[in-house]
């Protein structure tokens, strides 16, 4: 059965980011779901032939399933806008804002959502100001435990939880391995949740929050991509009013960043029931162990139907 006017959708997956493997898995899942809905799908790994191909073949829509740089930083999306080819997901400007975690935190905080206290430091700052002086200031202002993460990137790569002051320098080195800017953030104790947002043209809707409980205690790369190593609760085991507050905060974040079609907002719910914004993802993982597909299924949605509606929304320019 063909849904809507779509004939030809190109799913982009792979690329040369650190999240290539995850992207390939997300892309295959999206492509399979669209195929089941009778849509002609082509799965392509972006390379030097891509632009020529898109210009010559002009697909109805592009479904970017590229995690990491170029897919999520707005570069590829800007190019698709330039070529006038509809695509699923946030436009380039919004993607750039969400991709840069410090910028996203600032914008979301301005919209009234709590976000953990943090400091953003480019690597140069340590060089200019002296590492020991900077570390002293951090320890005076931000109580342990801390989370150190690259300002850009996903899948928990380069992220370290620092429980002991002596571990901070190494955590900084690991974060700077992925990005020249890092965030040092106070770690909020509480329930880790992810809220998927879907907008098929009728306004953004928050999906049921997914609660994340890694067996190891840390939602690391391994905990994310080895089935069985994390327990997920959908909906999250939080009170209804807290869940409503979390959904509202996620929608505020999505709107504040100007996101479109699909996003995932990661938050911590503290002991008082306050949702704390951590980051927003313009291309949430869509693999078999990813959170948004879990939330969609929990909400009773058919993945292929939703993915095709998103492609239709892209074509309609919503």
């Amino acid at each position, binding site marked *: 059965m063909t849904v809507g006017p779509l004939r030809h959708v190109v799913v982009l997956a*792979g690329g*040369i*980011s*650190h*999240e*290539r*493997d*995850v992207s*390939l898995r997300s892309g295959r899942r999206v492509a399979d779901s669209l195929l089941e809905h009778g849509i002609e799908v082509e799965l392509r790994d972006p*390379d030097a032939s891509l632009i020529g191909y898109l210009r010559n073949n002009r697909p109805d829509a592009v479904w970017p399933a590229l995690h990491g740089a170029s897919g999520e930083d707005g570069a590829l999306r800007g190019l698709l806008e330039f070529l006038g080819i509809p695509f699923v997901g946030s436009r380039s400007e919004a993607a750039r804002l969400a991709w840069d975690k410090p910028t996203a935190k600032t914008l979301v905080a301005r919209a009234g959502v709590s976000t953990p206290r943090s400091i953003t430091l480019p*690597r140069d700052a*340590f*060089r200019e100001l*002296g*590492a*020991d002086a900077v570390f002293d200031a951090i320890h005076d202002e931000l109580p342990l435990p801390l989370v150190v993460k690259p300002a850009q990137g996903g*899948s928990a*790569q*380069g992220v370290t939880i620092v429980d002991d002051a*002596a571990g901070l*320098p*190494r955590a*900084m*080195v*690991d974060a*700077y*391995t*992925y990005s020249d800017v890092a965030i040092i953030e106070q770690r909020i104790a509480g329930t880790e949740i992810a809220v998927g947002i879907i907008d098929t043209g009728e306004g953004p809707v928050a999906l049921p929050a997914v*609660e994340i*409980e890694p067996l190891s205690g840390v939602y690391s*790369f*391994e905990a994310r*991509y*080895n*089935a*069985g*190593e*994390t*327990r*997920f*609760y*959908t909906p999250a*085991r939080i009170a209804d009013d807290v869940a409503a507050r979390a959904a509202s905060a996620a929608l505020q974040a999505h709107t504040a960043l100007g996101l479109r079609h699909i996003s995932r907002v990661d938050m911590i719910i503290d002991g008082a029931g306050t949702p704390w914004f951590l980051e927003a993802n313009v291309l949430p993982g869509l693999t*078999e*162990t990813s959170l948004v597909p*879990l939330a969609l299924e929990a909400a009773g949605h058919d993945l292929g139907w939703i993915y095709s509606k998103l492609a239709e929304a892209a074509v309609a320019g919503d």
Partner: protein
Amino acid sequence: MAEPQGTNLDPWYSHYAQRTAGLSASEVRALFAVASRPEVVSLAGGMPYVSALPQDLVLSAAERTVREHGAVALQYGSGQGTPELREHILEVMALEGIRASVDDVVVTTGSQHALELMSKLFLDPGDVVIAEGPSYVTALTVFRSYQAEVVHTAMDAEGLVPEALRETIARVRAAGGRIKLLYTIPSFQNPMGVTLSWQRRMEVLEIARQNDILVLEDNPYGLLYFDQPPPQAMRSVEEQGVVYLGTFSKTLAPGLRVGWAVAPHAVREKLVLANEAAVLSPSSFAQTLISEYLGTADWRAQIDVFRGVYRERRDAMLSALGEQLPSLSWAVPDGGFYVWLRLPEHLDAKAMLPRAVKELVAYTPGTAFYADGGGRNAIRLSFCYPTPDFIREGIRRLATVINGELTLLSEFSQTGPLPLPLPAERPEGVLPPSVG
């Protein structure tokens, strides 16, 4: 209301055998996905350069396999392998001084499968395998999957150090460990590239005899020497105490998946039964094709071609290392595929890998070759697959990465070296075949 159970996305998670604990996808494995892109110079993979094998030689062997031997080649075969191929294997092994009977040879699905069968035959949970430190990553994975403990023994530029081996055995025994196997790659070792001298081969065999330990001699690279052949195989002088593993993956093509084991009579009988239990019979098609190739092509000359290709690449890598990273140290391999590069003490090769991938060069971190978290400041560089130009470019990028990492560390270690992160609680998981 009942407490929600949630889901872990794998309803069978609690049903897996304990031995599967190491079968996980790691961040390192994910990073290698990028290495397959053409923009990336991969110095990680141990893939033979099969393009140096004339396709028409393989094609004509394949054609005769189907036209002249189809009824056999497309059928199940013997669990020990075809007699024709085993005869040919004797000729190949004779080049390294091994004399054996055709009955002593068991053909397997790559020598990797022989490692699996040997582990199945000999290893109970808690048994100890002594292996060189560092050692072949996928052998360590197999041993661990049988819940054996891998204990490393030290190497130097001449390979495994006999005195260290004696001490290791004594230490393991004193702690109550049951040592079942000594696993060694004596020639152009993976990953260090070094070769065990003849004198040491004799010493190691004597130590094994004295301590009643079976030696598992893995020899994938012995024929791929550059200047001088390595000393003859340990199996050439010891029939009862050595199980020898060979392969066509490096001297012909790994896609055929054909290797072999040569074992003492009783062990060989069990290997055949285990082979049948696992795969019924190794691929008749691949065995017949290889027999046709060995029977008609000048395969010795083809091995010379491979040697020339790999020597040129080794030279390109060593000269590039000398130019780009003169302050680091490495052993010069006289054959095989690998250079083992030692980094400054406080560099963590695994933590540095994402930066390397960003700079479009990949390597295998040293930790992959240790079962105990060792190898933090070492990396394995493979020169077998990329062309010399790509190797030079790869080393140039690697130098940028290493120098950048040293600068970064110096910025954060004003009061002394940064402590290395704690060793991973579990090893790197299973690396892709192109990397192992």
